[in-house]
């Protein structure tokens, strides 16, 4: 989860995906209510008198105002993304001539067990982190919502992990899960349990990475859920109580359905960011550089797809292959997001 500010909803931030225009605020391009007539008037009378202009030239200030974004965006994002597609059909070491190879890179990809391993790793780490993260976040949100004291304190304290530098946290997790002298193994030892080689074993490596992500994002999600909970009118709860519904029924009958759009939002964000894990394994296993830099640790157990992409591009300088990896991976993310979306939306229609 690199929190890159360039584009895409970095998880630290409030992200307003187009899908979630449900709670409260008017969605971007919907017609406004009758009380507020269409206000996007261009300056008519007064300006026209000074500078009579025709056609598109009339709009130069608006175009000037939006141009910095689209200029930078075109040069540094749009063009590169399209160029990556082009690269995926080339063989190129970054120095010599490009050679058109057709679909060969994708055929390599299909046959590459390491690519599939990296996908498996990515998905496993994503599930291991997202499921407990969102579940715990919901529990925490309900607990905070049930009390009135210290809520401001809880909100700040629980939010802090999400603004903390991922590199720093990865170093910290590397230190406490260290096999020989980490805090976790010291605790196990004091409980007379045997030490676990956390960063040497296939599954514990994934657990450590997932724990890191869970630690960082649970509080953030909890606070988002909390805001959603607070938006549920209390009359609904009272009415349910009058009907004799218990707390469990209220939770599943009222809270969850009303939270659904927000849950959808957190699921989408966690999917998009969780599948893009890169920094965690890169920093955690960066010190094994002697033989295999960026291999994702012993048994490549922490090799996520983006780390594999980085390795092919910037260690092996196999840029064509790397481009194929990242595009295939993007299509996969897209697929998963669409599936998520469909699942939640279908449920929404049922009741």
């Amino acid at each position, binding site marked *: 989860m690199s929190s890159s500010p360039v584009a895409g909803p970095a998880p630290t931030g409030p992200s307003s995906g187009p899908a979630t225009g449900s709670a409260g605020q008017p969605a971007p391009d919907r017609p406004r209510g009758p009380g507020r007539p269409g206000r996007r008037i261009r300056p008519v009378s007064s300006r026209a008198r000074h500078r009579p202009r025709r056609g598109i030239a009339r709009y130069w200030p608006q175009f000037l105002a939006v141009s910095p974004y689209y200029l930078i965006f075109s040069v540094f994002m749009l063009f590169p993304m399209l160029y990556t597609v082009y690269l995926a059909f080339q063989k190129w070491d970054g120095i010599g001539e490009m050679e058109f190879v057709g679909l060969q890179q994708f055929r390599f990809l299909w046959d590459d067990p390491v690519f599939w391993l990296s996908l498996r790793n990515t998905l496993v780490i994503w599930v291991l982190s997202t499921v407990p993260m969102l579940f715990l976040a919901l529990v925490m949100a309900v607990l905070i919502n049930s009390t009135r004291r210290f809520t401001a304190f809880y909100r700040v304290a629980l939010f802090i992990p999400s603004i903390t530098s991922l590199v720093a946290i990865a170093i910290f997790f590397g230190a406490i899960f260290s*096999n*020989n002298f980490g805090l976790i193994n010291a605790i196990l030892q004091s409980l007379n349990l045997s030490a676990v080689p956390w960063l040497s074993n296939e599954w514990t490596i994934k657990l450590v990475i997932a724990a890191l992500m869970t630690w960082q994002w649970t509080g953030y999600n909890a606070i988002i859920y909390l805001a959603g909970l607070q938006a549920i009118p209390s009359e609904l709860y009272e009415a349910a109580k009058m009907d004799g519904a218990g707390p469990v029924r209220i939770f599943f009958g009222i809270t969850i359905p009303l939270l659904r759009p927000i849950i959808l939002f957190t699921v989408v964000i966690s999917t998009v960011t969780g599948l893009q894990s890169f920094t965690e394994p890169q920093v955690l296993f960066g010190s094994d550089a002697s033989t295999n830099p960026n291999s994702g640790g*012993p048994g490549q157990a922490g090799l996520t797809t983006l780390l594999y992409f980085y390795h092919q591009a*910037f260690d092996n300088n196999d840029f064509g292959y790397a481009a194929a990896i990242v595009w295939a991976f993007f299509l996969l993310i897209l697929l998963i997001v669409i599936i998520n979306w469909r699942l939640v939306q279908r449920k929404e229609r049922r009741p």
Partner: protein
Amino acid sequence: MDLSRRRFLQAAVLTAATAGLTAACGGSEPGGSKDSKTLKLWYWAGGMSDKVVADAKKQFSDTTLKTSVIGGDFKTKLLTGLKTAQTAPDITGIKGEDIASFLPNANRFLDLNELGMDKLAPEYLSWKLKQATTQDGKLIGFPIDIGPCAVYYREDLFAKAGLPTDPAKVSSELSTWDAFFEAGVELHKAVPKSFLVNNIGAVFSMAVGQGTKRFIDEDNTFIGDQDHIRAAWTTAVKPYTLGIDAKINDNTWNAAIGNGTVATGLGAAWYALDIQNAAPGTKGKWRVASLPSGPSNLGGSFLCLPSTCANPEKAFEIVSWMLNAENQARGFTDAALFPTTPAAYELPALTGGDAFFGGQKTIEIFGPAAEKIPAAYEAPADAAVSAAYFNELTAIEAKGKDPEDAWKDAVSQAKQIAKRQGVK
């Protein structure tokens, strides 16, 4: 949480101006910084003797030698740096395991023979020079050091287990891999917390280096599935099956080397520095013996001059001074860089005893090893292809993967990487 509007605009204008300015400066830099009086030298921590580099700055006071000790993965950073004249160093280190991958792009470096290396060549080890020579005879690297390999062992732990402790005796009695592993089993019995090797990848790289062939031959054909690699693999897996493998594939190696979890280290001459840095407290407890089943080479780096070098003559002068016999001997003392010029082997810095190794004269082990190193052809894609084997060896250790399955997967992955890299 309040921003004054005026201050905001001031700041924004200032930022835009600075950004524009830095952009302009950045753009004009190639012309500006490429004066022949300033030379940029890149190496990694431990890649050169810092003292020799410092002296070179004094020795060549008419030139400004700007040194950068590059962190992270050096090869990646160098590849990035070489992309433009303005970011490229004028002199750069290249690691021994990477030099082959730079040979296809030899035109990015100056031919040192044209700068006078052809006259100096007889003083340096010819097999080492060959590693940095292209097929049409261009020499791109000045050898900094070589990596003759040996067994570093904990004398105190060997004594506890009733094994031989004297370097000569260890060398002669544990002269084959099998004898070495047997000793490891005894050691583990006597000192249960101690293992013989830190991981089996280390054994594999030694065993491969003992042969005259690697993963790809001179005809650019993949040979990583043949008997010589298979034999090295079998040797490597043995300590794992015997239970004398510490399975350390992460940074806990540092702690393990200090607290006796690993009783030996298989490594090149420069490995001594790693041990000293990781475990200064074990001073005097280590000894060095010959590698079982014959000498091997691991790493050993070069200094190269990128073709964008601002002042090739001066740069070559500095490089050849830093790597003359006398300074190489100092490099051995400071940074455990084993000299590439046999003339240095006679100097006191090498013939003297090393306190970290209980006063042992380690040259008696490394000297003969250096002379007998088998020269193997290393193809440009060698490092990329070999990664598959190392990954699968760690998979055995991390997941308990069946070694036979791991071998099959390693070969099939290696074949694919080879294919992607254009190997037949």
